């Protein structure tokens, strides 16, 4: 399942809302940039006046005054540039901070079923790569686009004010400039995205080579890894060649459309001077404006493709908000802790049922083991019992209320799911545990860790509970991470727990020990344990055998063994010796 990406209209609407929210700041920034650009126009204008003065044979005081005026204009411009840049950067930081905080808030509120099915890869790349791209655009691109647009517009306006008849010649490059730039921009964003994707691939290959260095050594994979690195570089090279080719069209087109107006102004101006319609000074001024336009137009084009790349990233960020909620909480209160599944069906794809009408009545406080071959639907059943996905047919309820009608906060108090997937959050062990209960007392933390056989190694860490773990901190083994996850569950203390291979990463002896100490702590809780080890089934009150999306056998271990079905056969084959 793919997460949505905002379409053009949604993106425009979102950007519009964002801009409107910062209307005042934006107005201020624009005002400052416009003023700075106006002050920057003084130079060529004064020079034109001086050219006329020199040709008139005016005296030195005119020059002194003009230069003084120029100095004032320069100082003013510098001050305005500083204020404008500062204001726009601060605004950029504010808007961007808002954007990313909203994004993360949205992501952490994504419906449970979406998170389970979409996986985290796509979200991680949106949180890292896309946010970084937008950041670059917002932080550097948007201010520069504002500055250059203001400068270009005002320079052209000033030229028209000086002498509109001469200034029309400025537009002579436009018929070349506009199609060239359009041609380029239509292709650029895709080209640059391909480029960055090719580098991401290269980095992925290097990461694999380094992380798997031992495997590379053991199996003699060196030559293959090198070939792959080279292949990635070849792809990156061809991506670079493509954008380079785009630029070999863009650059000459742009360069020429800068030179044409200069020549146009001079030739047209000379004719106008000869016919007495303008002065040498005015033509000089406008010719210098033409020269002065080169830099901002070049920079604007450069940023336009960055902005394009930024907006594709923004579409992915904004798109996350379009995920529809998977449930609507009602206000019914469960009457007790009794969890029942009735005729539960589930299909990940329409028409392909994974569960075919499962009925399961969990006695309060019982321990049920779910066994069966992989792919039988055990994990899907577990997710239904924990209220992760709304079933496609039938219902799972607690105390008479369907699980998916409960507000999420309440649901967690009733049923919780722990899978073999483990993740240690950046922070201390204590912070990792407190997620489940922020107000837990230190003794509670210790008790929870003891219940999962983890207290010993936690206490042995350099800073005990306060040890920094996760990316950048002390690395925990998968087994330790699994213990931390279980300790969180102990703290959360729901009345029903679903453990989906929750101890599979521990070695068999440790797993069994952990399960025993855990069950002491969980006495009185209803536990559904999906397991691939038979001892879990042996220790449970009841065993459910799931095969092909159905419960084929259910009963106590002894009953099933006595019944002589599949479970009995399996058990006997193991017990034969």
């Amino acid at each position: 399942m793919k997460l949505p990406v905002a379409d053009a209209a949604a993106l425009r609407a979102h950007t519009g809302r964002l801009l409107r929210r910062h209307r005042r700041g934006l107005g201020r920034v624009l005002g400052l940039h416009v003023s700075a650009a106006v002050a920057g126009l003084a130079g060529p204008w004064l020079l034109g006046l001086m050219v006329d003065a020199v040709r008139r044979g005016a005296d030195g005081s005119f020059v002194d005054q003009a230069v003084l005026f120029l100095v004032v204009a320069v100082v003013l411009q510098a001050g305005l540039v500083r204020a404008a840049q500062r204001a726009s950067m601060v605004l950029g930081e504010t808007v961007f901070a808002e954007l990313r905080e909203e994004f993360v808030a949205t992501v952490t509120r994504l419906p449970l079923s979406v998170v389970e099915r979409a996986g985290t890869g796509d979200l991680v790349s949106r949180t890292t790569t896309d946010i970084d791209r937008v950041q670059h655009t917002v932080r550097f691109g948007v201010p520069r686009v504002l500055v250059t647009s203001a400068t270009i517009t005002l320079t052209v306006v000033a030229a028209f004010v000086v002498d509109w008849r001469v200034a029309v010649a400025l537009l002579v490059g436009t018929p070349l400039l506009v199609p060239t730039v359009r041609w380029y921009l239509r292709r650029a964003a895709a080209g640059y995205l391909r480029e960055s994707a090719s580098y991401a691939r290269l980095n992925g290959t290097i990461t694999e080579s380094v992380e798997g260095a031992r495997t590379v050594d053991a199996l003699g994979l060196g030559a293959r890894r090198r070939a792959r690195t080279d292949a990635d570089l070849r792809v990156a090279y061809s991506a670079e060649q493509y954008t380079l080719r785009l630029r070999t069209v863009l650059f000459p087109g742009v360069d020429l459309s800068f030179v044409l107006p200069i020549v146009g102004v001079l030739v047209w101006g000379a004719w106008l001077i000869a016919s007495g319609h303008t002065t040498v000074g005015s033509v000089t001024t406008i010719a210098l404006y033409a020269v002065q336009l080169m830099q901002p137009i070049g920079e604007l084009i450069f940023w336009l493709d960055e902005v394009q790349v930024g907006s594709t990233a923004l579409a992915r960020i904004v798109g996350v908000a379009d995920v529809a909620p998977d449930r609507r909480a009602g206000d019914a209160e469960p009457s007790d802790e009794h969890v029942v599944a009735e005729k539960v069906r589930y299909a990940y794809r329409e028409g392909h049922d994974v569960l075919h009408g499962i009925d399961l009545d969990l006695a309060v406080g019982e321990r049920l083991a779910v066994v069966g071959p992989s792919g039988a639907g055990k994990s899907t059943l577990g997710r239904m019992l924990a209220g992760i996905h709304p079933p496609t047919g039938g219902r799972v309820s607690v105390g008479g209320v369907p699980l998916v009608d409960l507000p999420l906060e309440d649901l967690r108090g009733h049923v919780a799911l722990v899978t073999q997937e483990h993740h240690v959050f950046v922070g201390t062990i204590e912070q990792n545990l407190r997620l489940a209960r922020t107000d837990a007392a230190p003794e509670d933390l210790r008790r929870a860790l003891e219940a999962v056989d983890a207290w010993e190694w936690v206490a042995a860490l350099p800073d005990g509970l306060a040890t920094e773990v996760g990316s950048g901190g002390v690395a925990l083994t998968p087994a330790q991470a699994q213990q931390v996850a279980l300790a969180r569950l102990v703290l959360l203390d729901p009345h029903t727990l679903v453990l989906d291979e929750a101890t599979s990463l521990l070695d068999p002896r440790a797993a069994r020990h952990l399960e025993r100490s855990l069950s002491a702590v969980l006495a009185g809780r209803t536990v559904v344990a999906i397991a691939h080890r038979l001892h879990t089934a042996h220790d449970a009150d009841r065993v459910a055998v799931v095969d092909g999306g159905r419960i084929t056998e259910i009963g106590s271990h002894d009953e099933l063994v006595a019944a002589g079905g599949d479970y009995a056969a399996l058990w006997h084959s193991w017990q034969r010796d």
Partner: protein
Amino acid sequence: MASTVPEGRRTVLRVRPLPETDPGTPPLTSAPAYLWWVARRQGWLLLGSSLLAVASAVSLAALPFLLGRVVDTGLDGGLSRDLLVGCLLILGAGLVLALGNVVGHVLDVHNWLRGAFRTSQLVGHHVTRTGDAVTAELPTGEVVATVASDALRVGEVFYVTARFIGGLVAYLVVAALLLDSSVVLGVAVLVGLPTVAGALALVVRPLQRRQAEQREAAGRLTTLGSDTVSGLRILRGIGGEDVFTARYREQSQRVRHAGVRVAGTQSLLDGLQTLLPGLFLAGVVWVGARLALDGEITAGQLVTFYGYAAFLTEPLTAATQAVHVLTRALVGVRKILRVLRVPVTGAELPRPDGASSAGLGGDLVDAVSQVLVRHGTVTALVSADPDETARVATRLGLLGREHADDAARVTLGGVALADLGLAEVRRRVVVAESTPQLFTGLLREELDPRAADGVPDGLVRAREEVEARLLDALLAADGQDVLDSVPDGLDGEVAEKGRSLSGGQRQRLALARALLTEAEVLVLVEPTSAVDAHTEARIAARLAQVRAGRTTVVVSASPLVLDRVDEVVLVADGVARARGTHRGLLDGAAGPEAAARYRAVVSRAAADEGTAGTAAATGTDTTTGTPTTREEAHREAARR
């Protein structure tokens, strides 16, 4: 302009495509030596781009000169010949500029790519020869960063070189021209501009520091973000979203504040970049206008001076940028050198003469643990401490830095592994660890890396035969279900690190890969730790069949596996204590003490598995015809 496009393309084609077949051997002595070595490998390209940059810069500098000339001679004579000549010259300069810019850019980019790609290739190749020594020396992230960012910094040096040289030449030319018209102006340019540059550099330093602070804060924010998202399933399952959003917001605000501090300095620099050249320009205009009034220069020359003063900021920026880029690159190269200095294992060095047949068909013996693996048997290593047996197993294949000194203590057919040479050891003894890594690539190729290299027996096989071989190995590892999980099966792509597969699937795929090496000696460490009991029983039976008659070592304490092997060696305190069959050891054939010890290890595991051994395998014995699909396998499991 139409003609400039194919021109640019032809230039592209003439340059050798990347990457190189062999990136070469750089000096590892110092960062400057490395950069110089890279530069020499693209000397012609650098020379060409520098010449073009000079041409571009000079024609850019010619624009003000030509403009001034037109103002003087052509503007008030109507559409005179002088005007038209002047305009044609401007157009000509414009064409040279456009052409120089585009071809120059192509060459600059190639210089950049050459420098960056050669470096990436050097790192990418080197890490495949170091074994795990590279991860012991540096964290993975830092090694990847040398390719992701430091290599690009190296490229940048060669990207800016030409522009720096072009700017320098243009600067000198303009200074000379000005000096010719007015000593005051000439000196002002020669002294004034470097002063301005120096003043700006004063602001650049604190700016860089603040930018670095912001980058660091932003890096932490990214880590926090991706951490939150990676653990999202857990967060949504047990709560704590608010804690995380708050934590993210806090760091996000920290980044914002750092950004505001950057804005303060950055905008100051922007202001100064307007102010100082602006004042310099005003000074030039003032002196020029005075000279013009005195009749020493013409009005057109005044325009030229103005143009020069405005133009000169370009070489200035190029120079400051070049210094900045070079500094960054030197820092980057130092990190790159740290990676390149990690010693290679030597597994890819040529084998010593006559090694290939030495010790063929002999027993494998580890003198440290006194473990003996008889030729042609499947032998299991068992210990109360699984790490201990794993250590013996990796020593048998000299895998990992920790066994660097053990080469003389392990013998194959009486020949010390040290005498065989690591290359020969790797070819003949393959160790597959319990958590081996899978790599991105076509499933077909990832399964059988040696076949793809043409190594195992040098024969080119028919496609059907290749396919059958792969399917056999997958079947032996009970991994046929992987074909359903990877879109397009054998021709599908395994995602990065096999992420799209479950832990059990990854392990079974890695087992199939190990079997396909068809190594003379295969060492498997806990090959079934992540699979369920049904599957383990099937794998144990098929493994014994597939490897029958070929030396195989399996580290496992599972009775399902132990009952299937030819011989079991019990290891305790790092030393082999007893050997025999699983049943024999249990029954006391190696003495009552050994039996007690063995039972203590195995029966604890057995109690955990709810089993004491032999029989699970019996189920597979009765199997007539091997199950070919997952469904069949399941049905078969259910039948049992």
